[in-house]
């Protein structure tokens, strides 16, 4: 708890949390913030530039795309998609990965061997190809994107956390808990998990950044969310064809992705510096 309050005081974490809070608010309150319906087409005003440029229309602050849809509204609704994927995919991957990591690191032996080899095999597939194959198999949709990211990225959690669990499990206080009569379950939950928790949160925030990027890639190639659901990757794909007429349409979704990923990475870095006891004294 002391570590959490300490990390909240760190400027990195505060800035990152502020940025994420803004994006999160945009996502949650999208219907009331967005000036237009994201799929409403205005065929009279196609490829409008942003409002401040010459020829812009104040009704469309960031202009319109090739079908005359409001770019700002689509960006705001796109944040919904991105944040949903970021939160659920990273939590899902964390859950599977960390449960397996704790079992593997704590019990060791044959279980550790089996889980370790499974991770090895899993990780030898190129992740982008694996997720594309999964999407082809599963079909498009928000839930499918989340599932694909979970299935690809749980190994990351498993690998990194397992080594941390190994270190903690060798501490004498874990042995002492067993000697005092703690069951394996109690030992894992009350002695091991609190020690691995800081790393776990850090990994989740980094995984959120990855999930945002992967969702964008999948949407870009048309294998992400359904076409009627606005997503940043999709907007980039659409804007790509009209890049000479209206470069701003390409720029804004890219900027959105960049800011979101940067915020999650900054958060991860800040948490790592403040929560990791080994770095807590030197970093910052």
């Amino acid at each position, binding site marked *: 708890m002391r570590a959490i309050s300490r990390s909240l005081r760190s400027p990195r974490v505060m800035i990152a949390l502020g940025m994420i809070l803004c994006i999160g608010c945009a996502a949650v309150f999208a219907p009331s913030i967005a000036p237009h319906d994201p799929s409403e087409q205005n065929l009279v005003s196609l490829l409008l530039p942003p409002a401040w440029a010459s020829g812009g229309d104040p009704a469309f602050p960031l202009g319109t795309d090739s079908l005359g849809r409001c770019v700002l509204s689509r960006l705001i609704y796109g944040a919904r998609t991105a944040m949903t994927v970021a939160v659920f995919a990273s939590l899902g991957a964390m859950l599977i990965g960390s449960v397996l990591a704790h079992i593997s690191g704590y019990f060791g032996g044959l279980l550790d061997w089996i889980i370790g080899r499974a991770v090895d095999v899993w990780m030898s597939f190129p992740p982008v190809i694996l997720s594309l194959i999964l999407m082809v198999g599963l079909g498009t949709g928000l839930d499918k994107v989340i599932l694909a990211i979970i299935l690809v990225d749980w190994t990351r959690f498993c690998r990194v956390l397992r080594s941390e669990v190994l270190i903690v499990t060798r501490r*004498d*206080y874990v*042995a*002492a*808990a*067993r*000697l*005092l009569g*703690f069951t394996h379950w109690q030992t894992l939950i*009350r002695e091991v998990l609190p020690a691995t928790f800081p790393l776990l949160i850090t990994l989740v925030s980094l995984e959120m950044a990855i999930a945002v990027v992967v969702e964008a890639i999948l949407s870009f190639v048309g294998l992400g969310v359904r076409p009627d659901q606005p997503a940043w990757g999709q907007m980039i794909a659409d804007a790509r064809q009209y890049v000479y007429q209206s470069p701003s349409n390409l720029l804004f979704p890219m900027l959105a992705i960049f800011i979101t990923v940067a915020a999650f990475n900054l958060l991860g870095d800040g948490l790592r510096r403040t929560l990791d006891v080994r770095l807590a004294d030197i970093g910052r």
Partner: protein
Amino acid sequence: MGILSAHDFTVTARLDDAVVPAIRGLSFDLAPGKILGLVGESGAGKSMVGRAIAQLLPPGFAVTGGSLSFEGRDFLAMAPARRRALLGRAIAFIPQAPLSALNPVLTIGQQFDEHLARVGRRSRAQRRERALTMLAAAQLPNGATLLAQYPHQLSGGMCQRVLIAMAFASNPRLVIADEPTTALDVTMHPQIIRLIADMQKEHGTAVIFITHDLRLAAQICDDVVVMYAGRAVERGPAQSVLSAPAHPYTRCLQLANPSMTERRALYVIPDQMPSLRQLPRLSGCHFAPRCPVVIEDCRRSEPPNMKVASDHVVACIRAETTRQISAPSPSIIASAVVERPLLQVDGLEKRYAEGSRWFGGLRETVAVKSASFSIAENEFVALVGESGSGKSTIAKLLVGLEQPTSGRILVGGQDLTETSTQARALRIASLQMVFQDPQSALNPRRRLASIVTQAMEAGSRHATSNERQTRAQELLSEIGLPTDFTTRFPAQLSGGQRQRINIARALCSLPKVLVADEIVSGLDVSIQAQLLNLLVRLRSELGFAMLFISHDLSVVRHLCSRVLVMYRGEIVEQGPIETVFTDPQHPHTRALLSSVPPDEPAAAWPIFATP
């Protein structure tokens, strides 16, 4: 003129914007070919001199006053290049941890050669010749094979010999040895000490010998400086300082150290040495808060250095009362032992298989070879032996952290090695372990109340927080800590206090037997005495037996009534302490016993005196 003389040498440390003196006004004069001992507990500042010379002061520390002159030249004012030229050539170092002082990826030969090249031997053949001579002088046979080996292929003792050979290879005028035996096995101590002394005599080198062991200092040093909280509290010829100490601290330290020949009560110096952070708040004599002969004047101003003899200086205004300090007489150690075996170990054996069954090369290592012993109620039994002899394996087998290959562990006639829930429950209720390293043994995220009563949340037991709070306060007062410590975290405690918490946790549900693995080894003598007395008091109040694993024979002699001697996985000798210590049968027991310097400063250490 001395080789090294310090005059009013002062080192200050910058801590949170406060400037704190880490060493205050240290003066000494080291004559050529003499050994000067810097003795004291950890944190007293005894390593600072060596570090200042090697230019390895910790960040924030700096020499801010006084002088340090090497062969008459001011060492501190010297140009860096000239100072570097002296280091390694005229001034050599013997480190504390030999394995980490050698580069693991270079052979001994390469490192020796590099060192000799640096100190100015030209031809390769010459350097090899010199290396071989030095290794032979350090009693390392087969020098040629040794030069081709890597540090990890050698034992700690051999590495230390190599480093000693390297230190003396450049015919230095001064060697600084910082706790050269602390990281090594006890049985290695006399040989290493002997080697340093022999090399020193042969080369006529002056040596600064830094140690915490007063008995060892009495044997090897010509002069000693006793340090306390950054100040030299007493200085003079080793024999007169240690046989008739004038400073109460020196005297108390001696009385706190258990004796090898008799069982006397230990003098307990209360509290602990002030840390650097506490220093600015202290006025007067820094030892005054712990001193048994303190008077009001002591707290008023720092005592001046006073002469008790022409060459014996002490910083105490009550020096004449020091000899009156004596250990408390009533000994409560010999408590009645009921001759009823409580714990019986029968043919306990542990083998580890190495390599693979399928790919060949399956080898078996025997960690414990058919160990049989018993412990009676309220009996403290010692388990001694060098590292790697299987002491810790026995501890782990007893508490169930490892499963034995064969053999039985009986408590009150019931076998604990069966894999049943009853056996586990019985083991938890009757056997508890106190771990060696209190740092690692306490969960840094729990408060003390939660740590000491951890047994009450185990399994399906659900104690209310009130019950736990009450029990925690009972336990804390039992182990002599303030009851308002319950809300603290382990990081807020000192090493000795952490070890008390460690003991309290094991005692929470009142087990019948404690297994204590080297629980006082990392602690200073005064803290060690506090813990030993605590264990004895707890036994008389709560009643428990203990298997006390240690390599420190004087501690064992003080605390336990019976001893088991282990050597290479086997219990080679066991019996009552007096019998085993006065008439050891096994050669290994004899080797262990002779590795301890005698209590009397004037007495000769047999292994050291014989040519």
